[in-house]
């Protein structure tokens, strides 16, 4: 079997792997093992300079989404996180692929008054079967039968070797935060936006005196249900990348016949789902190594105990007993990496891996299968995949950062890299194609595009310089995969404005923290 055939086989197998998940998204259910553990399935990670307004200049927002594809009507238990897991957001500010700061979220689930709400039924007090006993309007509502709380520890240095310092709510000096009840419906929670906003907490990061932020402002924290913010139509990516023709029996939707950006407005198949978001907004100065080192790299992970013994006489508090060291089961940095870059046989390994060990996955980036798949699908048009290997352009884009924008070090590892010194672009001025708009076309066939931060319309504060909710990362990734950063000689369709058909725009999201939208309601 030739290498080419093996590549093709890999690409087709990747397509096969994707087909059953055609209605899923960024990193949702992307690896075989994580499908068994939805509560710790990380789906998206956003890292960007806050663009809420001048009062939040100097802050960086970190959003980690978990528990994908929540149907809003999913009662009576809805979507609590795993109290036996830890969820973490990591920041590397030295460029070695090892976390320098970790925000560690630890959840707890309790019944009201430890026994649950009871009602007098025929002379007996009976425990009710529902998670709420009435409508909710505030964090301490007595009608909430199942109460989810969490603590957040800040670890400086390696996450398993250094102690955590607990974050403290400035309002009450507590280290325990409450998570809002999910958006069950308008009778349970009449105004979910108002209700959820009460769960945004202010705090200061221990061990950091921030600089570059407005006096009197503080870091913010929120954990709760949000509307899915990732826009993709993977089914149509492989149904001709939305070129408007029916290849696999699915009729094109919307105006996809041309390739202009305006055509990328068909449908977002995950837009009616909810996720659970871990949101932090912290001073950039507290994330950087020092004032002269503005670039940081971030990713999120979830870990569970290595051993689980099911309790044969399960109780609310102890359905199982867990022990042993923490074992990482989910990892997410750059969008779509484990979904369409890493081979099926290595997806679970990737989820358990650390960035410092990413050399083991390098072949998936240097010799990617996705472009070959696109060539198979579009080969009838004369379209060719890039012909140069190894793909140094992809290494730069996904493993090292864009030169002059967000290269943190020479070490190659997969993470979202953000230059915190690049001013945030106001919400209304953001371009869905982010920093990909900052390249001048090649001057000749044998040279690639030139980075030009002064280019009219350039939006350097967007993906792949960090990632904002309104960045159309699928379109950008498709174009980069097909050779946008290469010269024409090595990437014959490098200039094709590929779109996946799911439109995304910053204006579709909230104006400020936590940016992702109010979740879809379970009932009108």
């Amino acid at each position: 079997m030739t290498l080419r055939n093996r590549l093709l086989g890999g690409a087709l197998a990747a397509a096969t792997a994707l087909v059953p998940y055609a209605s899923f998204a960024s990193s949702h259910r992307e690896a075989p093992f994580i499908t068994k553990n939805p509560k710790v399935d990380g789906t998206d990670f956003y890292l960007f300079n806050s663009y809420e307004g001048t009062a939040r200049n100097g802050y960086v927002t970190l959003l980690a989404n978990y528990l994908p594809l929540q149907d809003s009507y999913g009662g009576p238990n809805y979507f609590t996180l795993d109290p036996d897991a830890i969820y973490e957001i990591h920041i590397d500010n030295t460029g070695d692929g090892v976390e320098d700061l970790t925000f560690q979220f630890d959840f707890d689930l309790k019944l009201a008054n430890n026994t649950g709400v009871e009602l007098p039924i025929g002379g007996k007090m009976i425990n009710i079967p529902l998670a709420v006993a009435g409508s909710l309007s505030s964090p301490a509502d007595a009608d909430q039968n199942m109460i989810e709380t969490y603590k957040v520890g800040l670890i400086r240095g390696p996450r398993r070797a250094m102690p955590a310092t607990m974050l403290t709510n400035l309002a009450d000096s507590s280290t325990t935060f409450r998570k809002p009840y999910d958006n069950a419906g308008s009778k349970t929670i009449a105004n979910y936006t108002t209700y959820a906003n009460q769960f945004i907490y202010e705090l200061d990061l221990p061990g950091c005196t921030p600089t570059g932020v407005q006096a009197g402002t503080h870091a913010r924290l929120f954990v709760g249900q949000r509307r899915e913010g990732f826009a993709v139509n993977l089914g149509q990516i492989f149904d001709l990348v939305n070129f408007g023709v029916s290849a696999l029996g699915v009729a094109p939707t919307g105006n996809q016949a041309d390739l202009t950006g305006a055509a990328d407005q068909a449908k977002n198949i995950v837009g009616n789902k909810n996720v659970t978001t871990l949101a932090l907004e912290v001073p950039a100065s507290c994330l950087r190594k020092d004032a002269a080192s503005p670039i940081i790299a971030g990713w999120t992970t979830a870990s569970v105990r290595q051993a689980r013994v099911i309790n044969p006489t399960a109780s609310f508090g102890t359905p199982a007993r867990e022990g042993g060291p923490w074992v990482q089961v989910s990892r997410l940095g750059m969008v779509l990496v484990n979904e369409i870059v890493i081979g099926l046989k290595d997806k679970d390994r990737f989820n358990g891996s650390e960035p410092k060990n990413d050399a083991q996955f390098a072949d998936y980036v240097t010799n990617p299968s996705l472009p070959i798949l696109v060539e198979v699908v579009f080969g009838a048009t004369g379209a060719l995949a890039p012909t140069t290997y190894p793909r140094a352009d992809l290494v730069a884009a996904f493993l090292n950062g864009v030169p002059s924008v967000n290269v943190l070090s020479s070490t190659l590892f997969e993470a979202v890299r953000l230059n915190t010194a690049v001013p945030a672009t106001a919400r209304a001025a953001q371009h869905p194609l982010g920093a990909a708009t900052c390249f001048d076309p090649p001057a000749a066939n044998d040279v690639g595009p030139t980075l030009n931060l002064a280019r009219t319309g350039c939006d350097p504060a967007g993906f792949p310089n960090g990632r904002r909710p309104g960045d159309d990362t699928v379109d950008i990734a498709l174009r980069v995969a097909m050779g946008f950063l290469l010269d024409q000689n090595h990437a014959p369709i490098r200039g094709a404005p590929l779109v996946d058909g799911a439109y995304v725009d910053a204006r579709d999201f909230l104006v400020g923290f936590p940016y992702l939208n109010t979740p879809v309601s379970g009932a009108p």
Partner: protein
Amino acid sequence: MRTLHTICFVMALAACKSEPNHPPLPAPPPPPPSPVEPVQATTPGAPGSQNLAPLAGVTARMREESSARPRVEVTAEALFDALADRGIVIARRQQVLAATAQAAYCALGVTDDSIAIAVCEYESQAAARAGKRLLDTRYAKLVPDAVRVLNGNTLVTVANATKTPARRDQVLDTFRSL
């Protein structure tokens, strides 16, 4: 002995479920001295999964297309062979999705100087003409330098040949001559 111990342990666990007086939960296993080290990566082979089964979606569609090729005067193989006779080396060739061009079957050949030669076979001349119109319009921005020529029920697209127009013309002339 170890196996026996394992069996006993598993049986003991199983017995827990039917035991009327449930014993207390076993204590969590003690943490090992250091976290489990990831398995060392083996030398990676070809990128992408090697698991080719079950092939579905694109592959299934292509299999159908391959098994129901129409009768045409100029097949993809005939063109590639004729080009080889004229000294145009096809460095690689593969079946590609014909549905993209609303064709019955398509193959893509790539010359040693990276000229793309897509050959699509149709059920009829009318279908081939419709396919050409589709490709010329819908995919104009995808492959702007594509040149397409019909010969009977077969449509040929030559692309990525802007720098080698003579070579492109040689391919098209060969196709017309068949």
